[in-house]
Each structure stands twice: as structure tokens, then as C-alpha cells.
């Protein structure tokens, strides 16, 4: 399959007085899988719809395979799109649904039949060609929607929360299937979701959106471990945040958590002043003795919830701040609720934010 990149250059979308997308730029490399992740109303679906040609862009430009599609109507863009509710044609059989795009491209009836069947086979739908969408399960409907989108050999594949309607088990199966399919077909894909786990597990890169803009675009692990802003830290994964103060002496910074008797010596120098310190729940450990280079903080365990792969804790510091701590199944120290204990973390795992932005 030919691979086309998408270059979005400072696009702005306006509906009357609202501006759902503001001067947004994004480069998707050929064959790449990029997710647009954000809360509802952040502009992610509008961005997707402008790539498809369903939302007019007031400013900026979109290029697919290097060619501007600004003035190309939606039905000439050669794009495959999958909707949250799949939007299968209820009065057409599975085979007719899959073949629809080819029919619009004036492909011969015989070739439509062959290619629709091949696409159906690839998505394990061969036994369902004569069925109607309402006779299929949610997962099967989704595969029909994917087959219908891919059979036309589109330049790019756009997915608008296609997993949202599936139950949890099926969703996780479909995530693997979608990822495999996307890699084997090699198609450039933009995926819209508000589910961070889904974005983390599927994407080559994730763009976190808020208020019509992209806050950060990075590989999933970079995004998770080095969130560029406090908003990203809180939106992707769980963030424990402390208010803290930075003071400097001898070219090195000292960070003191407000209200806790904790003081940390950094090996680098930051600007003095008020900051916030962020820690992920799984980077905190329980223990009676602090390993070298780690920071101890006495806490009281409020509650413990066993969720299989981990035990999730809520612990309270002496100043009354509540923190989340995740202890994986293999860890030996697992205190009970009500217990007085100590938590530790490594300085390297700690992120510092000033005015919501990550400090180097």
C-alpha cells in the first residue's frame, strides 16, 4: 500500500463564535499511528473531521501525501473513516457495505466482489457477507466498518473513537487486532480517543489536546514519564502533586515539600520559587528503610484495593494530603489499611512543574 503522510499546518476551525481548533499543527509520518487524546470538547474530533473534509478550515492548510487538500471536497480525498457508531448502511448487506466505496470509484462489479471478499477474509468476516449490519455483534460491525474503510486503499485511515461502544474484553482484543492490521497494511492512521490507556497501547505517538491546541506530542512512554505540562501529567495516567519550594545554595537546588518535613537535594540548579512536584503512583514504594538516594515520607494507609495486577492504595501524610500508591503483585511489602508506614521514591522519578510547565 502506498503511504502518505499528513501535514497539518496551523489550522483554525470556526463554528460561529466557537473556535474548536486553534492554529493547530501536526505532522503524521507515512505509516505512522498517531492518536489525538483529550477530554471531550478539546477539538480532537473536529481536527479529524477537517482531515476528512467534513469541517471547513478557516485558516491554515492540510496536505496529504504532500498535496494540499484544502480545496478538495470530502468525497474526492480518498480517506477511510471509521465512526464510533460505525455508520454501516442498514439496508445493505455486509458485502454491499464493504463494496460501497469501490462502487463509488466505478470499479467493475467483478473486481468489487473480489476485493470486498478479500477484505472480508482479512477481517474474519467471510461467513457474514450476506448478513445485514443489525444481525451482527458490535465487534463484527466494527470489523465491517474497518473493511469498508480499508478496501478502497485510502491514503490515510481516520478512526473516531471506534472502540467506545465495545465492552472491555472485546475492546482489548480489538486493540491488538487493530494494531496488527494497521502495521501489516502500513497505513497512516489518525485515531481519536478520550481513553488514555487505549492511546498508550496503540499509538506510535500521542498528541494530547486541550482547548483546540496540541499540548504535547510524543511517544507513549515519553509522554507518560515526561509530561510537558501539569495538564498532560494529570490527563495521562494518575499524578500525585505536591506544592513545593525551590531554594538554591552552591549551584544546586533544594526542594522542600510544603507542609511535609521533606527536603530533597537536587544535583542541578533550578530557578528559586514555588513549584509543584509530580509522582506516579507506581513509582512510590512502601518500606521501613529508605534505599540509598530515595526520599522517605511517613504516611498512614487509608485504604487498599486489590485489582489483580496490583494493589491500589490511598495513603495520607501527616499534613492531611492524600496520595495514590500502586504496588505491583510481585512486590513483597504490602501494608494493610490503617497501618502507619513510610513511602519512598527516587529523585529521578520525580517531575517538577513551574506554572504548569515541566522544569528541565
Amino acid at each position: 500500500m502506498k503511504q502518505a503522510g499528513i501535514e497539518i499546518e496551523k489550522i483554525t476551525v470556526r463554528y460561529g463564535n466557537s473556535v474548536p481548533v486553534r492554529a493547530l499543527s501536526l505532522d503524521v509520518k507515512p505509516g505512522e499511528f498517531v492518536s489525538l487524546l483529550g477530554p471531550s470538547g478539546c477539538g480532537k474530533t473536529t481536527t479529524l473531521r477537517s482531515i476528512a473534509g467534513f469541517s471547513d478550515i478557516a485558516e491554515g492548510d492540510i496536505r496529504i501525501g504532500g498535496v494540499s487538500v484544502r480545496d478538495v471536497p470530502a468525497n474526492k480525498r480518498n480517506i477511510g473513516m471509521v465512526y464510533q457508531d460505525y455508520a454501516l448502511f442498514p439496508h445493505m448487506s455486509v458485502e454491499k457495505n464493504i463494496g460501497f466505496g469501490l462502487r463509488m470509484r466505478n470499479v467493475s462489479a467483478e473486481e468489487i466482489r473480489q476485493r470486498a471478499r478479500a477484505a472480508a477474509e482479512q477481517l474474519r468476516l467471510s461467513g457474514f457477507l450476506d448478513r445485514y449490519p443489525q444481525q451482527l455483534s458490535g465487534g463484527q460491525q466494527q470489523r465491517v466498518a474497518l473493511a469498508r474503510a480499508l478496501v478502497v486503499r485510502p491514503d490515510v485511515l481516520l478512526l473516531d473513537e471506534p472502540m467506545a461502544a465495545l465492552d472491555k474484553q472485546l475492546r482489548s482484543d480489538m486493540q491488538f487486532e487493530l494494531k496488527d492490521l494497521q502495521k501489516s497494511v502500513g497505513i497512516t492512521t489518525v485515531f481519536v480517543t478520550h481513553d488514555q490507556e487505549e492511546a498508550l497501547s496503540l499509538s506510535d505517538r500521542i498528541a494530547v489536546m486541550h482547548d483546540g491546541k496540541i499540548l504535547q506530542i510524543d511517544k507513549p512512554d515519553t509522554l507518560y514519564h515526561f509530561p510537558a505540562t501539569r495538564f498532560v501529567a494529570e490527563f495521562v495516567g494518575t499524578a500525585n502533586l505536591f506544592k513545593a519550594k525551590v531554594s538554591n545554595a552552591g549551584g544546586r537546588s533544594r526542594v522542600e515539600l510544603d507542609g511535609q518535613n521533606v527536603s530533597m537535594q537536587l544535583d542541578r540548579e533550578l530557578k528559586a520559587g514555588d513549584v509543584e512536584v509530580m509522582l506516579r503512583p507506581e513509582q512510590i514504594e512502601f518500606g521501613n528503610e529508605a534505599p540509598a538516594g530515595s526520599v522517605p515520607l511517613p504516611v498512614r494507609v487509608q485504604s487498599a484495593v486489590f485489582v489483580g495486577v496490583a494493589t491500589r492504595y490511598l495513603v495520607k501524610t501527616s499534613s492531611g494530603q492524600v496520595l495514590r500508591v500502586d504496588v505491583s503483585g510481585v512486590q513483597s511489602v504490602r501494608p494493610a489499611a490503617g497501618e502507619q508506614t513510610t513511602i519512598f521514591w527516587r529523585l529521578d522519578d520525580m517531575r517538577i512543574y513551574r506554572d504548569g510547565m515541566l522544569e528541565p
Partner: protein
Amino acid sequence: MKTGATRDPLTIAATAIAFVTLFAATFPLFVTTITAFNATNETVFPPNGWSLRWFWNIAAQPELVEAAAFSLVLAVISSAISISLGVVSAVALTRKKFPGRDLIDAFLMSPLLVPQVILGLSFLVFFVRIGLKQPFLNLLLPHVVLTFPYALRVIRSSLIRMNPKLEEAAVGLGASSVKSFFLVTFPQMRPSLFVAIFFCFVVSFDNFTASAFLTVSGATLPVQIYFNIESSLDPTISAISALLIVSSAFFVIVADRVVGVEKIV
């Protein structure tokens, strides 16, 4: 569950009222149908003997047959016009945004609210003023006005229930907006079109009040029936009424079986 639900006094009362209403509404139809089988030339109930002669007598009264044919043609053509206009208007009202849309929507539905006497009289005054004296056109125009709101209402509600993403999906797959309409939207409107045809046909075929004002020569069937019972009251009128009642009931049942009237209205 069944025993508990049926013993509930509210359910019993509601069921009783439903049956009384059904009876009150259908009893006159029932009586009319039965009187058509009278043996003598008196329209009495219960009949004082049985025969089918009044049904054969319909054919012997050419003005009734002509009126029936006239009404049939009028109903078919006015329904066809109303439904074509209804499809176009419903698409515009549900799929396009334009200023004054809600106002136009309300205006298009308004003939339902105007008393037919006034509608008939208005058209009469209008036709006299412009000097149009065409038996068929003088009735066709008001019949389109009368049937159009029914067509619009039924078709519009089917478009509102339809997922607009389907049309978008079709365009995304390369369809022009015209193709998207004919291949995706229209096929899904089909059940509502059957219902619209049925409503328009009945409203037109059945109309008396407005039509009575506008009958020049060549009456519609309801108007002709009215003329006939003014001069004589033999059971021929009952016989033709019985035919209309039975055929209407037949169409309602067929329409319900095919598309489910309750889903559309």
C-alpha cells in the same frame, strides 16, 4: 407479572375506556356496512331481509362511478405532488441550516390548523377572482395543500430518526451528495413513503368540506354521495360506503404489516 398487572385498577379502567372508545368509533361503520345488505329500498337497521342488489346498483348509477373515478385520479395526483414536495422540504428542513427554518417549518404545517370551511371558501374566492374555472385544477390545488402537511410530517420524522453519519460516511467513501441521497438516504425513507402515500390518499379521497365549496361540475365521491342522499336514501349509498370502509380497513392492515404504522406516526 401478568396477574399483578391486570388486576391493577388503573389498567382495568384504561382497558375499559379503550374498548368503549373503539366500540363508539366503529359501531356506526358497522351499522352502515350491515344496512348495505338490506333486501328492500329502505336503509334500516337491522335489515328487514338480505340481498346484494345495492352493490350491483352502484354500477347502475353512473354519477357515483364517475365520482369515484374522479376522486381516485384526484387522490393519486395530489398525493404524488404532495409527496414529491414533502421529500424535498423534509430534506431541506432536517439536513440544511438556513435562516427562518423553524418559521417555515411551522408555516408548512399550518394547513392542518386552518378550518376546512375557511380553506374551501378562500380557494373559492381566489379562483373566482383569478377567473380559473377548471373542475380538476380547482380541486387539485386545495387537495395538495391539505395533504402536504401529512406527507411532510411523516417523511420528516423518518429523516430525523435516521443517523446523519450515514450520509457523511457515504460521502467519505466517495459518493457525491446526490448519490449519497439516492443510495443511502432514500432507501431508508421508503417505509415512511408508503405511510405518506396512504395518509395523503385517504385525506384527499375522503375530503368533503373543502371539496364541497369547489365542486364545479364533476363531483368528488364524498360530495356526490352527499348529493345522492339529499334526493333518495336507498341502500346504494350504504353499499358504496361499505366498500370504502372495507378497503380502508384492508389498507390500514396491509400498511401496518408492511411498515408498522405506529413506528412512523
